């Protein structure tokens, strides 16, 4: 076979700016960023448990800090991000967990709905364990 004179041109991709290229990438990065807020929220929760272990006075100070406007704003933002993360994740579950019955696949909305139902049940159990009712 004759040797092909080849000098392929490789285009560069920016490690830090690629996600501006289109809307799909931006939605993806937004979803990845939600973990930052969920991570900080988890740290706050751990600090709360640590303060609880130090006694009532320490825990009351922690609760007081949670009531500050900064803290409330952070929790609202973290809630918004975690809801965005959960909703987008639930919407993707039919892709990862297709269920075939005979020649048909179970409709996406059934699989998504089952996840919301599971979420509601777990939430009720936790609220019950927390002694709300």
């Amino acid at each position, binding site marked *: 076979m004759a040797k092909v004179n080849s000098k392929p041109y490789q285009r560069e991709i920016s490690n830090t700016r690629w996600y501006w290229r289109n809307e799909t990438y931006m939605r993806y990065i937004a979803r990845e960023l939600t973990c930052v807020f969920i991570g900080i929220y988890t740290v706050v929760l751990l600090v709360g448990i640590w303060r609880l272990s130090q006694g009532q006075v320490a825990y009351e100070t922690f609760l007081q800090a949670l009531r500050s406007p900064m803290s409330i704003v952070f929790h609202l933002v973290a809630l918004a991000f975690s809801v965005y993360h959960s909703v987008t994740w639930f919407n993707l579950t039919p*892709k990862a967990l297709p269920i075939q019955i005979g020649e048909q696949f179970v409709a996406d909305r059934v699989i998504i709905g089952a996840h919301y139902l599971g979420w509601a049940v777990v939430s009720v159990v936790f609220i019950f364990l927390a002694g709300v009712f």
Partner: protein
Amino acid sequence: MTDRSIELEVLRYNPETDSEPYWQRYSVPHHHEWVVLDALNHIKENIDPTLNYRWSCHMAVCGSCGMMINGSPKLACKSFMRDYENLIRVEPLAHFPIERDLVTGMDDFVSKLARVKPYLIPKQDKPVEEGEYRQTPAELKRYKQYSMCINCMICYSACPEYGLIPKFLGPAAITLAHRYNLDSRDGGREQRQEEVASGEGVWECTFVGACSEACPKHVDPAGALQQVKIASTIDWFKEQLSSWLK
């Protein structure tokens, strides 16, 4: 009938004379029923015979004419000019090396495809006299969607992971491995897992989902890859459990 013209900007590159690609603009007639491939053929036949691109079937079956059209990976034969404004920018598929004009190098994809053994590996070989390997419609339905892949590489062009980490096996290769793994006649999953479940395999995927949005055949590679992740995770747990029970 054509009543106006439309501008087509094409990324050109001649490895013998150019150090880097450049844009060249052509004015082509606008026909309501034309796709971008028709416009490229018009340029080649009437304006500039030096323009290079791949195409064959003109009906979204061969998978040859994948290219970036206004920044999105598309089949040129499936992209109607009427869906675009007055300027259409055409580039070679992203993430692949440009060989010449719109022609990209496919070697990386083809070698990855071969690595996952995308063909039936029967559980048990049997002589031809014993007849065909039979399958029920339900068994066919299980993998049929993934068998629609035409190897057009559009999913690789859509996948930012592949662009950033070129060693990634990529959407189509793993999806095709999954297609054969799901086939009731196949027994080759263990052989494919060596490649598919490796670090360069499915675990490079972070579920951006752009592959499935771009796929012109609605194969849903992103779905296939998540299913492969779940199956590979179950394998790992089974392995741990069996070694623990020993």
